[in-house]
């Protein structure tokens, strides 16, 4: 009963936040609502028995997306401070009927899918049966790294492609502009960083290690680490740079390269393509992916091709 009430509460807030994020009076409020919507989504995942998704949504869906939207908003208002005045959307009489029809279609499909005769989920069953022999405890990590590892390899490639595409469209001249305010640094910020940075690194390493057995994994860990990087960019410790940096670029690609090379290696001794040789390979690839994911997200945030350290007081 309490569970159902909780579900209802989550759902009502999901819907309210969704409406608000699109219809809020100002774009800035829309972004705030959208970020909170991500947090509500993560509660929904927890209720749907999907803790990995809850964590991923909180870190990636709400955290990283929110940061990216905020920074995009800042760049927008630098160009045109008033983002809403010129935008009176043409009233569309078809919008409501189309939206109703689309929603109804999804609803009917979903209800039918729930009520349909439950089919044996062959793939899922096979995952749970084969998990024992791998030494992993978290079936989702098993799916992502072992059974359907190629999906994950391509997924980090998609992330890389998004970064490269974003860099391709980012204008090069305004890179040197600082993302930080011109305020002189306050002592509090340094103190905060001194505590938060090691703590975040610790948490992401924990998430990474935990991913093998319970909730966690490279994506969640990478997003947490990225949050740390975003903090460093915002407080002026890291700055956007145009200079080619072998270190940054290697970090950016270490995940993909490790995955490909460890995936190709088994062919040399007659094993199947992408058959990872043991648990160490999983942990290695996950650690490398964590670093790459974090760097990719920070670079997306900084809108830059590279990063450099900056002295700050």
């Amino acid at each position, binding site marked *: 009963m309490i569970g159902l009430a909780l579900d209802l509460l989550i759902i009502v807030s999901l819907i309210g936040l969704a409406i608000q994020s699109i219809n809020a009076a100002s774009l800035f409020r829309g972004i705030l609502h959208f970020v909170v919507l991500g947090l509500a989504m993560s509660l929904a995942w927890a209720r749907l028995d999907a803790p990995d998704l809850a964590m991923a949504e909180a870190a990636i869906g709400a955290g990283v997306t929110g940061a990216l939207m905020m920074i995009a908003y800042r760049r927008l208002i630098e160009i045109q401070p008033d983002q809403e005045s010129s935008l009176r959307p043409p009233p569309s009489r078809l919008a409501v009927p189309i939206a109703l029809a689309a929603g109804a279609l999804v609803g009917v499909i979903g209800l039918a899918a729930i009520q349909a005769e439950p089919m044996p989920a062959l793939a899922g069953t096979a995952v749970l049966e084969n998990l024992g022999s791998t030494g992993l405890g978290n079936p989702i990590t098993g799916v992502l790294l072992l059974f359907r590892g190629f999906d994950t390899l391509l997924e980090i490639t998609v992330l890389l492609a998004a970064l490269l595409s974003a860099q391709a469209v980012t204008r090069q001249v305004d890179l040197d502009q600082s993302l930080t305010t011109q*305020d002189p640094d*306050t002592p509090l910020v340094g103190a*905060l960083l001194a*505590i*938060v940075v090691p703590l975040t690194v610790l948490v992401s390493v924990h998430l990474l290690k935990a991913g093998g057995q319970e909730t966690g994994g490279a994506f969640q860990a990478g997003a947490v680490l990225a949050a740390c990087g975003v903090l460093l960019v915002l407080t002026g410790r890291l700055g956007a740079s145009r200079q080619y940096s072998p270190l940054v670029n290697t970090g950016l690609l270490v995940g993909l390269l490790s995955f490909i090379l460890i995936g190709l290696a088994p062919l040399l001794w007659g094993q199947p393509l992408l058959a990872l040789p043991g648990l160490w390979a999983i942990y290695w690839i996950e650690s490398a992916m964590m670093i790459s994911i974090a760097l990719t997200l920070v670079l997306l945030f900084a809108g830059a091709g590279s990063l450099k350290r900056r002295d700050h007081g």
Partner: protein
Amino acid sequence: MTIADSIALILLLAGCAFYLAGTIGLLRFPDVYCRLHALAKADNTGLCLICVGLAILSADWQVAAILALVWLVGLLAATVSAHLIARHAHSAGRVPARSGPSRR
């Protein structure tokens, strides 16, 4: 329901009440300083009460330690961000409202 459970329940409810107060303050207070005041103080007290309540419910030292850490980090983040926002508002020339309707 044991005594510990009831104490935990009371703490949780009290925590929620503080959160509610903080949120009302955020929505109703006239200027950025008052709002920060409401958020930073009330919410952190609420968080503390809820953490203590949960720690009692869990009856496990490890969980209690993690909850304490959660509260500490939350406190730290709230302190610094409230400070930074207030500082930014101050340097941007926002004057605290004396009275009257909320300004934006």
